[in-house]
C-alpha cells in the first residue's frame, strides 16, 4: 500500500476520532473547528477542479458559498428540516447561479473571468446586504436544526460532525473520479492550451461552464453545511475575504492536486484560528504576508514541497498537474 494511501487513511482515522475526545481531553470547540475545516475542505475540492485542473481562477466563489448558506437557512426556516431536501435545494439553486454567472463569465477572453466572478460576487454581497427578507445586514439568526431522518437530529455537534465528514469524504471520492475521468483530462488540456483544445474539436466553453457549475455546487454544499452548524447566516458569508481565503488555501495547498488544497484549507483555518486568538484582527495582515511569501517563494504550495521531497529520493514523473 502506497505512502499516499496510508497517509490518507491515517488522516481520515484521525478525523473520525476527533469528536471522541471532546469534553474529556479537550474542549468541544475543536469539534466546531473540525466542522469548519471539513466545510472548507469540501469547498476547496470543487475549487481546485476549476482552478487547478481547468485553470479558471475565480475571484468570487463566495457567491456560491453564501447562496448555499442562505438557501439552507431559508429551507430550514420555512420549508423542512430534512437535511437531504435542504442540500438538494442548495445544489439546485447553485446550479442555476453557476449557469447564469458562468454564461457571462466564461467567454473568449479568459482574463474577463477573473473580473466577472469578482463583480458578480460583489453584486450578490450587496444584494443580500440590502434585502430585507433575509435580514439585510443583520442576517438570519435562529435557524432550526436540521434532521437526518429516522429521528436523528443534527443539532448534536458530534452527529453533525460525522455527517459533514461523510459528505466531505463522498465529495472527495467524486472529485477524484472527475479528475481522473476523460472529462477531467479534457479540462487539463483546456488549461494547457485552450486554443489547441478547440481546434482538436472540443467545445471548451461548454466544458468550462460545466466545471464552473460543479465547483459552485461544492462551494454551495459547503456553505449549507456551515449554515446548518452555525444556525445563523449573515452577508459576511458573501464577502470577498471568503473568496480571498479560498484562493489562499488553493495556492498554499498546491494547485491541481486535489489533496493539496484540502490540506491548505485545514492549514489556513487552524492557523487563522490560532493567530486570531493571539492577535485579533491583525492576523489577516499576517495571512496576506504568508500568501505573498508563498507566491514569491513556493508557488507550487505544500503539494509541490511534498513532490520535491519525494523526487529527491525517488525520481518518478509527477501526474498531470500544472
Amino acid at each position, binding site marked *: 500500500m502506497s505512502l499516499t494511501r496510508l497517509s490518507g487513511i491515517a488522516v481520515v482515522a484521525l478525523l473520525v476520532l476527533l469528536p471522541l475526545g471532546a469534553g474529556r481531553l479537550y474542549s468541544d470547540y475543536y469539534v466546531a473547528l473540525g466542522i469548519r475545516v471539513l466545510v472548507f475542505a469540501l469547498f476547496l475540492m470543487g475549487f481546485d477542479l476549476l482552478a487547478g485542473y481547468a485553470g479558471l481562477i475565480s475571484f468570487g466563489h463566495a457567491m456560491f458559498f453564501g447562496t448555499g448558506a442562505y438557501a439552507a437557512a431559508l429551507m430550514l426556516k420555512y420549508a423542512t428540516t430534512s437535511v437531504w431536501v435542504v442540500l438538494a435545494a442548495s445544489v439546485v439553486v447553485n446550479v442555476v447561479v453557476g449557469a447564469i454567472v458562468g454564461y457571462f463569465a466564461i467567454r473568449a477572453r479568459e482574463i474577463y473571468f477573473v473580473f466577472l466572478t469578482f463583480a458578480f460576487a460583489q453584486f450578490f454581497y450587496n444584494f443580500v446586504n440590502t434585502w430585507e427578507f433575509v435580514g439585510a445586514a443583520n442576517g438570519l439568526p435562529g435557524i432550526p436544526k436540521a434532521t437526518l431522518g429516522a429521528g436523528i437530529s443534527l443539532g448534536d455537534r458530534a452527529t453533525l460532525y460525522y455527517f459533514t465528514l461523510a459528505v466531505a469524504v463522498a465529495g472527495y471520492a467524486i472529485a477524484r473520479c472527475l479528475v481522473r475521468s*476523460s472529462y477531467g483530462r479534457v479540462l487539463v488540456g483546456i488549461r494547457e492550451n485552450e486554443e489547441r483544445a478547440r481546434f*482538436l*474539436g472540443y467545445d471548451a466553453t461548454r466544458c468550462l461552464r460545466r466545471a464552473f457549475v460543479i465547483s459552485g455546487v461544492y462551494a454551495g454544499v459547503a456553505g449549507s453545511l456551515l449554515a446548518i452548524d452555525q444556525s445563523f447566516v449573515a452577508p459576511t458569508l458573501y464577502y470577498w475575504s471568503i473568496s480571498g481565503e479560498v484562493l489562499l488555501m488553493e495556492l498554499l495547498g498546491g494547485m491541481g492536486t486535489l489533496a493539496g488544497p484540502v490540506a491548505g484549507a485545514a492549514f489556513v483555518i487552524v492557523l487563522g484560528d490560532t493567530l486570531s486568538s493571539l492577535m485579533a484582527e491583525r492576523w489577516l495582515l499576517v495571512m496576506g504576508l504568508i500568501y505573498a511569501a508563498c507566491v514569491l517563494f513556493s508557488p507550487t504550495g505544500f503539494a509541490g514541497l511534498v513532490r520535491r521531497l519525494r523526487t529527491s529520493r525517488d525520481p518518478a514523473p509527477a501526474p498531470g498537474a500544472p
Partner: protein
Amino acid sequence: MTLLQLRALRKSFGSLMAIDGLDFDVEAGRITSVIGPNGAGKTTLFNLISGRISADAGTVVFKDRAIDGLPPDAIARLGIARSFQITNIFPGLTALENVRLAVQVRAPRALSPWCPAERLGGVTLRALAVLDRVGLGAHRDRPARTLSHGDQRHLEIAMTLATGPELLLLDEPTAGMSAVETATTMALIVEIAQDVTVLIIEHDMELVMRLSHHVMVMAAGRKIAEGPADVVARDDEVRRVYLGGL
C-alpha cells in the same frame, strides 16, 4: 471530388484588405500548396477555413456543407484539422498525453465525468500508433515542452492526424527546421497524404515543387495563379511577385 470550395471570400481588418475576393477549390486526395509573399493572406485563409475568424463576405463549403461562421471546434469535428505557424500543443503534458487528447475527441465517452480515462484503452493504443508513425514513439513520456522544435512540430502534426481528419491544413510545417528535419517532414507529409487531403502553406520552394500536385499562388489577398507546380513556376505574374524567388 471537390472537398473544399471557397467562393468570393473577403476579409478585412480595419482598412487592411487581407482577403479580397478569393475563389478556390481543393480537390480531395492530393497535396495542394498555398504560396505567396508575406502578407499575401495565406494564414488568414487558413484562419477563415478553420473558423478562427469569420469572413466579411463569401462562402466556405466543405463536403457540400457551408462552414463559414461555425466555431473552430465544430469545424474540427466535421473533419478539418490544422497546425499553426507557431506550434500549438499542450506544453505541460507528455507527447503521448498530447496525442491521446487528440484521439479522444472521437471516442464515444470523450467527455464522460466518471469514466476513468485509462478505460479508454483503444485511445491509448491509437495514440501510440500515431506517435510511431511520426517517429516520436521513443519520446512518448517526455513533456512536450522539452522536445526539440522539430519534434514539437511533428507532435502537432501527429495531433492533427490523430483526430482522423479528411482535410489537413498545415501552416508552414517546416518553419524553423534544419535541412534534415525538413526532409523527414517532407517524407512524413507524403506518407500522410495517402489517406488525407493536405493543404500546405509553405515558403520552402523546393518542398513545394517536389511535394505538391497543385499550387495556388496568392498575393495581396488575391489568387494570382493556380495549377500544377511546374506550370505555376513559369507564370510571369508569379515570377514578378516573387522577384525571381522561383
